[in-house]
């Protein structure tokens, strides 16, 4: 009898562990954060501290950065416009765009990125809130103002290029996140679930988002506003930029010699606190897509065209 119970427990345990049904993209409660996702803010030239060891660094030009991540709504607008203008194409339920390639040094583990068509975004897949059916893009209700995810570096690069923007370099991102002091997070040195969407935020977000599976939050969600029982704390950086840590990782522009990886900053909803620090990095090949990875753009300070 005991043996039977043990065997049954093992089988049940394995069945639970092996249940690999993807979580379907569910609707969630729409939330108005009162933050304008189309807004930009100026980051002024000057000194800043770079990395864990606070290297005294300088950026000698002004630039502007998006106040929030690029949202699903913004990205769908881009997809429609870029598809209409022939800049991108859809093949086998995925968005592709042409990329001119990068220098290859033949270094250990380095992979060639030659000129060609590259994956920008897989469509109609679990984790992506944008779908494409009958030549129409649509967004899962409630996710319109959430950060776009399942976006490769090429997809982010194409968005920026299409509107005359660019992705931030790691230095630009650091200065925008940190200002001129040595803080650990964009808003200061402490972290909790009222300030940012990270691994410990699930419990507080479930009632607000009306879902059991908590992932992204709307762009600019943590701005001091109260949502049901959750009183948020403003997490903007010294330049007023929201979600520079948490929610979803952000693609960086840098093309470092001898590696094909592209780097990410900021951490995401699935990370512990130390991945949300300003010096923390992640990386992957430029065609990597994930449900916890998005981007935002920068542009030259004088540029006012585009969006």
């Amino acid at each position: 009898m005991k043996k039977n119970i043990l065997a049954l427990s093992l089988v049940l345990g394995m069945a639970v562990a092996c249940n690999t049904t993807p979580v379907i993209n569910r609707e969630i409660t729409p939330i108005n954060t009162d933050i304008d996702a189309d807004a930009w803010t100026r980051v002024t030239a000057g000194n800043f501290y770079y990395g864990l060891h606070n290297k005294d660094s300088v950026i000698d030009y002004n630039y502007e950065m998006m106040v929030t991540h690029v949202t699903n709504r913004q990205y769908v607008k881009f997809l429609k416009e870029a598809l209409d203008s022939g800049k991108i194409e859809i093949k086998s339920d995925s968005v592709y765009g042409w990329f001119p390639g990068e220098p290859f040094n033949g270094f250990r583990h380095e992979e060639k990125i030659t000129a060609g068509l590259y994956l920008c975004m897989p469509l109609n897949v679990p984790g992506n809130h944008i779908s494409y059916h009958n030549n129409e893009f649509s967004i899962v209700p409630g996710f319109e103002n959430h950060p776009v995810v399942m976006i490769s570096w090429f997809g982010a690069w194409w968005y920026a290029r299409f509107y005359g923007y660019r992705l931030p370099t790691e230095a630009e991102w650091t200065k925008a996140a940190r200002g001129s002091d040595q803080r650990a997070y964009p808003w200061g040195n402490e972290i909790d679930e009222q300030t940012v969407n990270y691994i410990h935020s699930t419990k507080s977000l479930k009632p607000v988002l009306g879902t059991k599976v908590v992932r992204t939050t709307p762009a600019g969600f943590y701005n001091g506003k109260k949502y049901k029982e959750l009183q948020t704390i403003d997490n903007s950086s010294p330049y007023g930029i929201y979600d520079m840590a948490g929610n979803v990782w952000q693609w960086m522009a840098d093309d470092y010699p001898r590696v094909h990886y592209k780097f990410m900053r900021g951490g995401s909803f699935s990370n512990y606190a130390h991945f949300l620090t300003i010096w923390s990095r992640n990386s992957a090949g430029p065609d990597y897509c994930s449900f916890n990875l998005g981007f935002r753009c920068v542009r030259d300070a004088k540029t006012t065209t585009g969006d």
Partner: protein
Amino acid sequence: MNRAGYFFNSTKGLILVAIVMVSVATAIFGMLSGPMAEWGVKDLVVRYLHMDLKPAERAGRIIMLYHTIAMAVIAIEVYMITSAVPMKNYQQTNINTVVTIGYLTTMFFGLGFAYWGQNWAFHGLFLVGLSLMFFAGLMLAVALNPWNKDYRITDKAYAHTKKGMDLERMAFFVMAVMTLISAAFGAVTGSFWGNGHETFLGEDIIREADKTALQKAIIGHLHIMLTLIAVAITLVVGRWLDFKGIFHKMAMWLMIPGTIIIAGGAWSVVWTHSAHTFIYVGSVFVMLAALFLVIFGWKKLINDRLKEQNLKRAGFIKKIAALVHDPIKFGPLWQMVFMNFTVSGVGIFMAVKLDEIFRVWPLREERITLTGHWHILSAIVATIIIMYYADISGLKGKARKWFGWLLIIGSDVAFASVTIFSMKRLMVVETAQQQLMDTTMILADLGLGIVLVLMFVLLLWRLFDLFKDNGLWRKETINQELEVNKTAGYIPAFSKKSYSTKGNEK
């Protein structure tokens, strides 16, 4: 001899103190991460112990914590070696004294520096502790000198050269010397700290194309130190089980060059990309030696049990029953086998499929696999030490069986779960991983929880024993050395001591 004398003057007492130190450190600092952080326990610990945890100092804190726990584990291994390998009494006393002061100084001041504000006097004393450990290592290497004619092999069942040199002693000596050089390798690099060398965690820089020589040296150092700790415990287990015969001879001939080649390979990572090739070759040698120990040990466990049962012939089932009869002795050998699935296997798979699989994953996932497999190796070494200590303590009967099996099952469930967690992308797409992650995390926490509860019970038992006038501690004071058959030139390690009989002492 009183209780203080037992703690600091006998091998078994010294081992107990070091195990307590590691357990206390694990209990306190284990509450700062994982589910404990999620449940709010971390905040309580930080508040009530007045810890100072700045985010920017996290890497430094972790480095200090690794070093302090490692020093206590090394001290335990040193106590076992000085007791199990023949050497002069004064050598054993000197080595044990210095290593004890060394690891305690390292622990108190290293952790004090890392977690309670950066008092630089503490950092200096932390370095003093590490230096004492190094000095103790030098004395150990001298004491283990395999060319010393006093320790020629007399029992031909043990591995030896034609001239009678004890090859197991040579294996211990080589391990000690390689450890000293590897420690110096890290120490020299550490001496550049603040002067060209900055704090970093190895797992954070794996994808950087341009690693400095100092960074590479640290990566070599951390890998080889853990490997040598594993080599040392393998040799100690061999002595515990009285490893001898043909398998002993083959194993020692492999262990000696294997240890040298692995160490050389780890150091050469600074200069050559071929370092991994050396490491693989050395690993094959060392792992074959460990395999021979496992074969010998399993055979011995079966034969000893069948002999106890007066069975001259036994079928497969009876042999298996005999093999697993004593989980405390079966456990260390099983853990060495299990290690191949959760450490070596993972490492080899990563190396073979690095560009194809692991470098396609984001850095964070590759990092989890890396940190997972070396944490498991460390924990496997710890479980082997715990099992040996349970044997030393004379755990018997049902308590021995429950303790042994729960330790094996609890730790292996945890290690397997962590391995599955770290490789989850091979099995499940990212968007569907939550259930697998939840299940593996619960099983890992459950398994580790069982191990910690067992440790707590074992130490509680030993704590209560200290209140008895004629408890185990007194017997261990009298029979204070490990009960092992020595390979050569047996000299009673503590024959010089006669114990006073003042007061209640006998």
